[in-house]
């Protein structure tokens, strides 16, 4: 810590205020920075190791974030789903009357049913190729989704055979602006607007919003190999509570009184449940944890290489310092200071490039790649640890510098 404070102080003694005690010569800083090219290579190395960690962690988070972005915009304080539906992927519905039963409870102001269907075939108006989209349907009068563009299209959605399309749907879905007419589930559909949400694994191609009546029109009378839907079975039920109501308490009350063929969760619990599925029950967690760990190890090797080279090259000088009377501990602090400086100098460009990368990925893939303060801090801590570990290993070499060998040859 002292070393760090030392590095951060101004470099030369102040000519006007001589009472300011000049600091110790920052040998760590000078040794690290006096050769331009070497320094740039070192910074490049550390930044890219940092970038790797940001990248893999970022992809992992993007996959998780994408899965819950729909959940987060659901306008409900308590969520009701079929007990078997522990992830949105599972197409289980529950009886609509459960919502009526829940509505009767104190504190519950309103109950909105949300109908979903995965794999509704949408025809690209230009190429005529079909892609499966996810359909979200509800009564346009119910403020089911907290998205302004959706609320704005309330009236339009009441018209038959209309829908609004997620503009972040994949390019293969084709043009999707208002006025486009094409086919969904082999029936005509009119696009009356767009909104913005994003894709995820379940709806990898895109999302479409329509009214519940339209949902019936498209999905209640299908061919023999498709499952039909009606409005009495609901995929996701949203309960809106009175302002100031305690969601947890009401959820508990509901669980006690309502039959257990449904799950009752507060919205944060619902989101957590979904995230948990993706983290624990799929390979995503394993893959990206492995990749991030490898990046961490690569970083350690990189930094160690830099520190080791510095110690090797200045072997004789460091031994001389020992002969003059500097203790081993001083040399340890020089090495550790260097590792910390590397951590800081490498983190900043790594972070900046990561920001650019996140943006590029979001645009190219539709996945939601977000940098948050928490995530940046997480990687910063990893970077510092990485450098400290390298420093600790490199320090052993510097301790071996024998001052007696400086004499003679």
């Amino acid at each position, binding site marked *: 810590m002292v070393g760090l404070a030392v590095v951060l102080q101004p470099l030369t*003694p102040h000519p006007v205020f001589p009472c300011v*005690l*000049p*600091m*110790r*010569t920052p*040998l760590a800083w*000078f*040794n690290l*920075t*006096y*050769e331009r090219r070497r320094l740039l290579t070192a910074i490049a190395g550390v930044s890219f190791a940092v970038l790797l960690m940001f990248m893999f962690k970022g992809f992992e988070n993007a996959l998780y974030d994408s899965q819950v972005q729909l959940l987060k915009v659901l306008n409900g304080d308590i969520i009701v789903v079929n007990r078997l539906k522990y992830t949105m992927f599972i197409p289980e519905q529950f009886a609509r009357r459960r919502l009526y039963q829940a509505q009767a409870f104190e504190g519950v102001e309103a109950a909105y049913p949300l109908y979903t269907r995965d794999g509704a075939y949408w025809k690209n108006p230009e190429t005529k190729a079909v892609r499966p989209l996810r359909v979200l349907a509800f009564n346009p009068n119910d403020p089911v989704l907290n998205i302004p563009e959706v609320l704005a299209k309330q009236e339009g959605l009441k018209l038959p055979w209309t829908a609004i399309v997620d503009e972040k749907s994949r390019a293969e879905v084709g043009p999707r602006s208002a006025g486009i007419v094409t086919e969904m589930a082999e029936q005509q559909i009119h696009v009356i607007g767009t909104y913005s949400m994003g894709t995820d694994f379940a709806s990898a191609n895109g999302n479409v919003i329509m009214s519940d009546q339209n949902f019936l029109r498209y999905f209640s009378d299908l061919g023999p190999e498709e499952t039909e839907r009606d409005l009495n079975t609901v995929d996701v039920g949203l309960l809106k509570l009175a302002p100031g109501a305690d969601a947890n308490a009401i959820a508990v009350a509901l669980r006690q009184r309502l039959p257990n063929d449904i799950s009752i969760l507060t919205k944060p619990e619902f989101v957590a449940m979904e995230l948990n599925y993706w983290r624990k029950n799929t390979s995503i967690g394993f893959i990206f944890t492995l990749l991030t760990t490898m990046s961490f190890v690569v970083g350690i090797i990189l930094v160690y290489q830099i520190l080791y080279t510095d110690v090797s090259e*200045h072997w*004789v*000088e460091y*031994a*001389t*310092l*020992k*002969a*003059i*009377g*500097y*203790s*081993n501990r001083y040399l340890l602090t020089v090495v550790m200071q260097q590792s910390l400086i590397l951590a800081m100098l490498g983190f900043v460009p790594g972070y900046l490039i990561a920001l650019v990368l996140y943006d590029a990925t979001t645009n190219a893939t539709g996945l939601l790649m977000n940098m948050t303060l928490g995530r940046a801090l997480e990687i910063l801590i990893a970077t510092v640890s990485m450098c400290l570990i390298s420093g600790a290993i490199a320090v052993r070499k510097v301790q071996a510098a024998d*001052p*007696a060998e*400086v*004499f*003679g040859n």
Partner: protein
Amino acid sequence: MSDALSLSNDSRTVPIEVAPAEMAVQICDLNYYFGQGDLRKQVLYDVNLSLPRGQIVIMTGPSGSGKTTLLTLIGALRTLQEGSLQVLQHELVGMNQRELVEVRRNIGFIFQAHNLFESLTASQNVEMAVELMDDRRAKRQRAIAMLTEVGLAERVDYKPKTLSGGQKQRVAIARALVNQPTLILADEPTAALDKKSGRDVVTLMQNLAKEKNCTILMVTHDNRILDMADRIINLVDGRLETDEEIDHFMDNHNPKNLDRHMFMTL
């Protein structure tokens, strides 16, 4: 020349000797070995030596004779187990690393190579020594003053890359002398210098010896500077062969006929 009185090996408590403050270095029955067990090889045999304050001593001898080893021992750079070696009133035998480091701070080392940090200016390299004494306030002034004394006033903010070989060595010497040590150990200090620089440096050391009562022990083959010494000791195969006052030495040795083993003319 005052002979070293036999000191008991356990002399850490009270140094009992005639005029103790005079002796910068006091060595008694020193034996030193390299390696351990069956591979143990002895390099110093029964060395007895006393160096008073303010004396300038030149140590000569063929290569492999143990001069460098003795120098490193006096410089508190190695741990010792046998015999007695007192440096500036500190008994080095049995000291641990930390204590040895403390002793080193009072000694000025001058090496054959300059061993400066390429990344630091001349002034900064010298300041590294000043900082050791925790004197940060005046470190730059003291560094500049010392560099001026060695004739490098114009070059204080130059990095070693832009200095000549001789200049670099002078910076190293400035570094060694800036804390005004009471004992200076030098290993071929003038080997890399031309005649004039070498002379200047040596004169500087001489002044320090006389003004500050600083003891100088120098290993050298440079017979141009023989005359600055008060005393010449000769180490052969780990034993102190001769130990003479300079006049005596000069009387007995014609520099031109010197045994090639002892000196190399540069």
